[in-house]
């Protein structure tokens, strides 16, 4: 039974030592160690969360980039298409315009030619007329130099009138 009865002295010293080691370690060891551990754990958790968030953001950005790229590609195609249409339109319009101008110029030229031709013709006619009159005058002067010739001619004219 001696083993089972605690000695006061040892009890006292144990209590004293345990309590002092408890208070000392609590202040100088456990607090800093536990703080460091929980700090590290929250730090790691935060880092992982940040990494996850960054990853998500990255993929989001990538998606956006792809979307932008696709959009740009589409725009480019559209623009090329538009440009081609525009080009054709411009060419067509140019052709049409040119043709119209050419036609107009041709028409004008033709008109002028016509006018000038007419003027020339009129002049030729006038000249010919004058020449004919002159010739006729000269012929008449020569033919009608006798009285006989004058009455013969008059008869011829009368004959012509009758026929008409």
């Amino acid at each position, binding site marked *: 039974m001696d083993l089972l009865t605690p*000695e006061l*002295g040892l009890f006292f010293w144990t209590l004293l*030592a*345990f309590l002092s080691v408890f208070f000392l370690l609590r202040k100088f060891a*456990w607090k800093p160690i536990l703080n*460091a551990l929980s700090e590290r754990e929250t730090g790691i958790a935060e880092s992982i969360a940040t990494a996850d968030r960054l990853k998500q953001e990255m993929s989001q950005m990538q998606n956006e980039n792809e979307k932008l790229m696709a959009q740009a590609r589409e725009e480019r195609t559209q623009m090329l298409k538009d440009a081609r249409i525009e080009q054709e339109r411009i060419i067509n319009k140019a052709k049409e315009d040119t043709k119209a101008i050419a036609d107009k110029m041709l028409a004008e030229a033709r008109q002028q030619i016509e006018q000038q031709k007419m003027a020339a013709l009129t002049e030729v006619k006038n000249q010919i007329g004058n020449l004919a009159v002159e010739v006729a005058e000269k012929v008449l002067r020569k033919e009608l130099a006798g009285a006989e010739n004058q009455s013969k001619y008059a008869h011829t004219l009368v004959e012509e009138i009758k026929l008409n």
Partner: protein
Amino acid sequence: MVVKRLFSLLVLILTVSITINPVLAQHGPEGHETAAEHGHEAAEEKKGFNASEVIFGHIRDSHYWHLFDLNGHPVSLPLPVIIYHPEKGLEMFSASRFHHGHESYNGYYIDHNVKMKEKIASEDGAAIKDFSITKNVLSMFLSVAILLILMTNVAKKYKKNGSMKAPSGFQNALEPVITFIRDEVAKPNLGSKYMGYMPLLLTVFFFLWLNNMLGLLPGGANFTGNIAVTACLAAVSFIVMMAKSNKHYWSHLLNPPGVPFGIKLLLVPIEIMSMFIKPIALCIRLFANMLAGHIVILSVISMIFIFAALSKVAGIAFAPFSLAFSIFMFSLELLVAAIQAFIFTNLTAVFIGQAIEEPHHGEHAH
């Protein structure tokens, strides 16, 4: 203590071919006498090796730190004796004054009638109080010093390196243990308020573990196998438990809900008893485990000497078996040292957890 065992083994190997008797006979006062009187094998057969004397000599607290025996004389470190006498007051002197229990000093003597303890009594029969720095106390002071140095160094490393640097060295060895106590002991048992109890749990765990292992060291003291020590630690747990207990705990203890009145009369005293049995169980469990481990190892070693006392050949023949078994026991005790420290810590956490448990939501149907 184990040093003595191992030393005894060494001594056995060295002396078994020359003479076993004088060395073996030195383990207690009785051994002294036999060695002096007879000194030869013939006389050893009956009184030569007193196993219980040797074993209790090792496991009991002492006012000397016994190192080894040399030529039949114990080589030991006398420790300071501090005695409070109700009339004479406090007295302090070296234990060497007792001359290994053979003489009395200043009216005090070592009472040989008490076998399992080294009890100092007063010649005038006064009820003296012994506050001596005994072997156990000194061993504990040593463990306290080791704990303080190790832990503050580790804490310094944390401060120096910052929290985000990977641990290294002893810090690395300590960290898993600390996180184990936190995650497996404190968190499951104490709930959200676990952080406040971590210093206590860590101190209890490391204090016990270190002392358990120091007790296994050769020449170490049987500190945690002493009931005064375990009673003290259990008392600390009990006081914390009582100080932190809440209304919920007491109302469930004194007025268990949903129980008929007749059964309440029966249940409440049992609950109150269990409240006190918890720390007592803590105390006895650690004490008995550590003590039993020491006794088993010592007994196995003692068997060599018991056989050797019968005949030299039997002693030599049995030595390998005894050695193998004691190595096995020693390994087991190393495991037990950690397990018992863990169990004590865990149960402390469990008991505190019960005392601080908050009422569950929706439990108030009664």
